């Protein structure tokens, strides 16, 4: 038992050391030159009011740029409601 605990502690320390070492290479927080901020973000910020149709950038992304995604989300909620309704109807009848 103690051997297993010792082994798990060692592996935990090893993985932690690797992760802490890797943190050095991550892009600094909030930097505008980060890769995540240079790909599609400038287009959203510049064009969401003219081509996105809404001054609110979040709404423009949600309803226009990512319209398929939001349609899928709405379908998930619809399916959840209908599924609960069908399940509980079965329970009460049977």
């Amino acid at each position, binding site marked *: 038992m103690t051997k297993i605990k010792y082994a798990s502690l060692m592996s935990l320390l090893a993985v932690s050391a690797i992760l802490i070492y890797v943190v050095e290479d991550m892009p600094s927080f909030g930097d505008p030159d980060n890769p995540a901020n240079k790909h599609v973000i400038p287009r959203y910020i510049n064009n969401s009011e*003219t*081509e*996105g*149709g*809404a*001054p*609110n950038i*979040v*709404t*423009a992304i*949600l*309803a*226009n740029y990512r*319209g*398929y995604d*939001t*349609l899928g*989300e*709405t*379908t998930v*909620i*619809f399916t*959840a*409601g*209908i599924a*609960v*309704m069908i399940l*509980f*109807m079965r*329970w*009460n*009848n049977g």
Partner: protein
Amino acid sequence: MGEKEVESLVARTISRIMIPFIQLFGIYVIVHGETSPGGGFQGGVILGTSMILYGIVYGLSKAKKRVSKKHLIILISLGVLIYSGIGLMDMLSGGKYLQYDSLPLPVDAHETTALSILGVELGIGLTVMSATIILFIYLAGERIGAGMDNW
């Protein structure tokens, strides 16, 4: 919470005053989601929450009388139908699916996109509101052991 309404006069009075304002705020969050934080999901949940407050304070049997199952099924389907119908109308009028500016409305492309986004948000709001009410009524009915055959 139970079948009957709560004893507290304060809770009943305050929620009777507050529920219309909660619903008004929910509609505001849906239709104003283009310019301020909010949108269909948030406004729909606020609208559904007003019904949950009604069910908690006035009892489940009164809440079941207030909303009918048939109307909720129609509303929850209508939301998805509005959303996918707008996409289909875009496709029928020559654009891609959900390409909002291809609708042949007598306004410019920017205005057409804004109106389509408003319609889409309304559809999301209807679906989320009905799903919230359905989940609450069925789960609460199961919790307190109320029969659901009469709803």
